[in-house]
């Protein structure tokens, strides 16, 4: 077995990666304080409980990133010739499944509480020796839980520059955190004003949002595992790299026509290119030079196998008997 080359971030991206790692550690530390504070004030409010579970689930993407990044950077070897990049996807698949199933459970629970007409009791809370209504403490903690929104804004450009899907999902979840906080806050204020049903309704909406997040992430990570055509990290459009490689190959004087087939292995791309040579003179050195030229196009182009062919069409019914 000939393993793939070892993937390195280029020096300028390496600094970005270290920054992302620091940000993720900070995120985890901050989230832990939020989770502890939420636990103290949750009481019997379903909206607070749901927001609390959401804060715990927000730990999943940073953990997936921090655990999988060092694994993904291991050198490909005879046992794992394609390297370890998929570690990120596997970690993330588990996280997305947790998000989806916890969201669904909370959604059912919230709707059940609403139908059972359960009135949430929010009593008193002692702070610095004074008694205040627990609802005010809840609102204070919810405000405190909004800070990761700023972290999300810092992570988003890093996710694009590093072409890192997990980092992108994490940044988006952080950015959406304020919605959860506002939802739970509306639930608490609703209860304070004497509308018991606002709490379970807000909880159902937050739980629906968690479930939807989980569903979207599951879809994305499954698409990654199925080697979907390379997309931008936000999934909005196809990545331009395959087309750029194809254009580059077609611009070579000895190439009549060319096409590519590529996969996004996590951070780096690998794949095959098919070229119709005008003539077969010096074919081997030309192929090697073309592969090196393609790799020089973009830091993510990890390995390209170039195959000389006489037709670019996919063989039909290849193995059918």
């Amino acid at each position, binding site marked *: 077995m000939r393993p793939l080359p070892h993937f390195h971030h280029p020096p300028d991206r390496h600094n970005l990666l270290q920054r992302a790692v620091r940000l993720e550690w900070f995120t985890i530390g901050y989230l832990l304080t939020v989770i502890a504070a939420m636990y103290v004030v949750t009481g019997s409010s379903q909206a607070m409980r749901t927001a609390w579970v959401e804060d715990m689930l927000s730990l999943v993407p940073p953990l997936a990133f921090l655990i999988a990044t060092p694994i993904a950077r291991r050198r490909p070897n005879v046992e794992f010739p394609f390297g370890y990049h998929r570690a990120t996807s596997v970690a993330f698949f588990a996280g997305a499944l947790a998000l989806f199933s916890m969201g669904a459970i909370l959604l059912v629970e919230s709707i059940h509480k609403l139908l059972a007409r359960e009135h949430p009791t929010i009593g008193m809370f002692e702070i610095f020796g004074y008694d205040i209504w627990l609802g005010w403490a809840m609102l204070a903690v919810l405000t405190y839980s909004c800070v990761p929104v700023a972290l999300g804004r810092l992570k988003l450009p890093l996710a694009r520059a590093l072409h890192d899907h997990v980092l992108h999902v994490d940044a988006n979840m952080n950015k959406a955190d304020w919605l959860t906080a506002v939802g739970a806050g509306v639930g608490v204020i609703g209860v*304070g004003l*004497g509308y*018991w049903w606002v709490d379970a309704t807000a909880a159902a909406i937050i739980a629906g949002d968690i479930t939807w997040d989980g569903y979207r992430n599951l879809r994305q990570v499954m698409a990654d595992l199925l080697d979907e055509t390379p997309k931008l990290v936000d999934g909005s459009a196809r990545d331009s790299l395959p087309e750029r490689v194809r254009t580059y190959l077609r611009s070579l004087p000895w190439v009549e026509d060319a096409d590519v087939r590529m996969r996004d292995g996590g951070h780096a791309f690998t794949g095959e290119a098919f070229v119709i040579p005008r003539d077969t003179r010096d074919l081997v050195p030309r192929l090697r030079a073309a592969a090196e030229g393609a790799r020089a196009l973009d830091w993510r182009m990890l390995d390209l196998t170039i195959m000389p062919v006489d037709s670019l069409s996919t063989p039909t019914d290849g193995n059918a008997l």
Partner: protein
Amino acid sequence: MRAERPFRLATLILLTSWMAACGIPRDPQDSLRRITQTRVLRAGFTVHEPWVRYSGGATPEGPEADLVAAFGESLGARVEWQRGSETQLFEALRTFELDIAIGGFDQDNPWASEVGTTRAYVEHNARRHVIALPPGENRLVTEFERMLRARAPAMAAAVGGKHLS
């Protein structure tokens, strides 16, 4: 301790007065207003010594019974006592047919999550005791807790338990 934190104290006073001004939290079923208007506090009890004793007549005795009587008085309401089993009392609270129930209940009571309870106010024989109120009547619960907090040390002393909060 408090003098070192004038800012926090000011914030708390502001917050509390604002809360009082808007009447937050309010009761979804308007319990507290009904009690002060009808001048009747519907209280349930089940015998559980030393918390609630009963020796015939219309009213129970014991520290929890005295507490409910004092609460009724502070609201200008007469206490209308009903005796029942624990299940009957909690069921009545859940359907808003009682305003408060006593019987030495602790916070691990399986019914506690179905109704509104105060914070634990006394620890006695490794059980943390609460008073039960209707679910989600948060104004009633918070008003009652104010009184409970003031009287908890004396009640703990009466039963020989540890005063909490």
